[in-house]
């Protein structure tokens, strides 16, 4: 007997930054159905944008013939987002978060994506099998307002 009804949404698009707007719209509409308010929705959009931007840039190196897939599943308690690629993979343990001030001193214009995901979501978890299936799972709890 299922106790919670899950709603599942999925989107696949060519690996190009021009599709980030569609990805954010997808996340925003699913997030709104899940019960998040406007200020939470922009955070969800941002976390998923960062995840997909990394796939487009790093996993696939801007090869637009590849595909980015996003799955979003929610029930009453939480929204889970899964971003899947079959690109080159990496070891997330090796990426150390540097403070913005330090990045600026090193004249870096990047290095915030994974930090943001962790700040914005309640759980962020990678499962990497380079060239096969690299999966990023993120969870955001739905806070009941009453």
């Amino acid at each position, binding site marked *: 007997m299922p106790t919670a009804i899950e709603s599942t949404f999925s989107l696949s698009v060519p690996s190009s930054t021009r599709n*980030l*707007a569609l990805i954010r719209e997808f996340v925003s509409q699913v997030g709104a159905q899940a019960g998040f308010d406007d*200020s939470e929705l922009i955070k969800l959009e941002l976390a998923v*944008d960062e995840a997909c*931007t990394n796939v487009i840039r790093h996993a696939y190196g801007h090869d637009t013939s590849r595909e980015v897939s996003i799955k979003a599943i929610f029930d009453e308690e939480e929204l889970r987002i899964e971003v899947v690629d079959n690109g080159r993979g990496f070891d997330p343990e090796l990426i150390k978060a540097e403070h*913005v001030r330090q*990045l600026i001193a090193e*004249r870096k214009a*990047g290095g915030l994506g994974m930090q943001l995901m962790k700040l914005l979501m309640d759980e962020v978890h990678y499962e990497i099998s380079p060239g096969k299936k690299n999966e990023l799972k993120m969870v955001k709890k739905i806070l009941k307002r009453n």
Partner: protein
Amino acid sequence: MPNPFAIHKSHQDDIVILNIEGYLDAHTAPQFEETIQAEVDQGKVRIIVDCEKLTYISSAGLGVFMGFIEEIREQGGDIKISGLNTKVKQIFDILHFDTIYDILSDIPAAIHRFAEVPIRKD
């Protein structure tokens, strides 16, 4: 599709005002980067980025602010940010950009800040 991102440029004395409109993500950030680069190349280093019509920013957009600030401050200029709406301001706040950049409510306040604090040191 309506242009998702646009930049309107104006001047106030030696200050360049860039009104950015739409969303600033990994797709549109290169256009913003080129615009700032062009100003810096001409020695225009007193820049206000007015974000009143900015609807969204990701780390790719924030990166443009980060990539130029040291060079601009070394040259005696600064980037002041104005007009952030509540939703977008949240994103700047999460990363504590307000400890590094002067963030003002509107363009007049940003111009005023340039007169008071030409370069933010922290």
